[in-house]
């Protein structure tokens, strides 16, 4: 259990750290990129 708690804590902090540090995606800068939307089935 202690090992499980350690692993879970490690992954939680790692993923949340990534969320905080990853730069936001650039907005689409062309019409062609916007057109990649897939159609409904």
């Amino acid at each position, binding site marked *: *259990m202690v090992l499980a708690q350690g692993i*879970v804590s490690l992954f939680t902090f790692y993923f949340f750290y990534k*969320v905080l540090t*990853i730069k936001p*995606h650039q907005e689409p800068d062309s019409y062609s990129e916007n057109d990649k939307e897939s159609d409904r089935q």
Partner: protein
Amino acid sequence: MSVKVDSWGSRVGLILAMAGNAVGLGNFLRFPVQAVQNGGGAFIIPYLICFLVMGIPLLFIEWSTGRYGGKFGNHSTPYILDTMSKGRIWKYVGVFGIFTNIAVAAYYCYIESWTISYVYHSIVGTFNGLSQGAVADFFNNYIDIGTSTTGIPYEAVIFYIACIILNTYILSKGLGGIEKVAKIGMPLLILFGVVLAVKGLTLGTSGASDLFPNANAWDGLNFLWTPQFDSLTNPKVWLAAAGQIFFTLSVGMGTIHCYAAYVKPKDDIALNAVSAGFMNEFVEVVLGSLIVIPIAAGYLGLDWVIQNAGFGMAFQTMPYLFQQWGGVLAVFAGVLWFGLLFFAGITSSLAMGTPWMGFMQDEFSWSKNKSAWSFGALILAMGLPTVIFYKQGLFDQYDYWAGTVSLVVFAFLETILFSYIFGIKKGWIEITSGADIKVPGFYKYIILIITPALLGWVLVSSIPDWIDKVKDTDTNNKEWFAENYYAENFEASGAKAGTVDEVKDDYILLSFENQKKVFDKASGKVDIVPFIDHKIYKFDLSKNQKTIVNIGDTVAPKDKIATGDFTNDTFYKFLGRMLLLSLFLFISIIVAIAYRKRTKEERIKL
């Protein structure tokens, strides 16, 4: 196509809201109890395996499905699922994603209202000097709505309505309101949890008393941390682990789809999903296991915990234990504990409002205000019977059918849709599109084979239990209205009989041989020990109810023990099932009306 009217303010806000949706009362109450009942430390092994092969895949499926539906302006499951398949029937499967939330919110807000009430009672010192039995009685009086503990008539109902109004008001502010609550509530919840967990870790033997001289918090921690490896071969333990993963992550509800539908089409969902999922696991595995069990073991001993571990500990036992800390510290601990449960509850109940609101805004162009207040009215109408007939088992029917069965059915169907109808190829593109982490390729095969198989197993295994519930096999008093009352089973098998120790016209005390689990420190094993247990029946003289047994009589299950006018719990349980069925049909009709509206407006291709 409807206009997107709302969006998340920040990524952190979204993750905290999503984690808040998952973190609920079960993290602190259900998980430790499940661990105690299913092999202590060994429970974590099937639990984590189920998290990796069922929990994470379901999070990926629901996040990506939600974002996909959002591209077409759909923010709740009926039309999110509809956009994923050619068959038009899937929108009715999506009804589960609104139904579950309204039904669960209806009774969940009642528990949430207890936490508000208990914060109040902790502050004013209601529990000061009360014995363990008196604290438990306080709870029983509280849920008996005719009794008032504060002088306010129908106090439980008033707190319940206040809780619904609070939820509805926040929901009427849209995603911004939810995000604000998550940003305040989640850090506070973790802070409160850490403070209580430190107390759980440092309590040691200081809570031992004359009544419980062997009480030791470390026994509770050791029991949770020592693996009982033989339990790993027991399928019931695996089923319990799969069930816990299910409920803790709030998958199969429709709330994740709804929140994810407001994510921008090019934004990440993979990292968001694992980040929110692991945050929930941190609260559950790390904080959840360090509070209730060690503190209860520290004052009452491990044997008491093994025997009595259950949901009721939160309200019936913890206030008494906090009193042992004395004075200001007791008030402080009560506020932290019930405040923690309140934040865990409200961040989940707010999420339950969004699928209905999203649907009404998408399909009927309702405003945030109108959709929020209509949600409040719906849960009040559905929830009042659970408040009034709580003791008759109506509450449990909601919890079972909406809070358990419905989730498994919906999750199984949505996984089949995602993997085999929408197609894993397209599904995988949806999961990895815009991803800020590399999702391991083997997850494609887990989603395709293992997750549906595991869900199918959970679903099929639970079918006999559904039948038992509908047949009311848990009682020997099956008639709705009866003139006789029969003794219930003394234990699960129904083979044992009891002896009448005390009897009055309206009261019977029976004793019978029972077994309890006791943890043997030396061997590290749980032993089964026989003991004399008691069962009490109380009757109502005003309804001509009168006992017909004598002291020394042997009473077997199904023996007649009283006569008079009885309205048995089976009546209220049936009422609960019918209310749930009506709600499901009501939402299905609204979905059908929305479909006709779409056809008329030629929006049907969306």
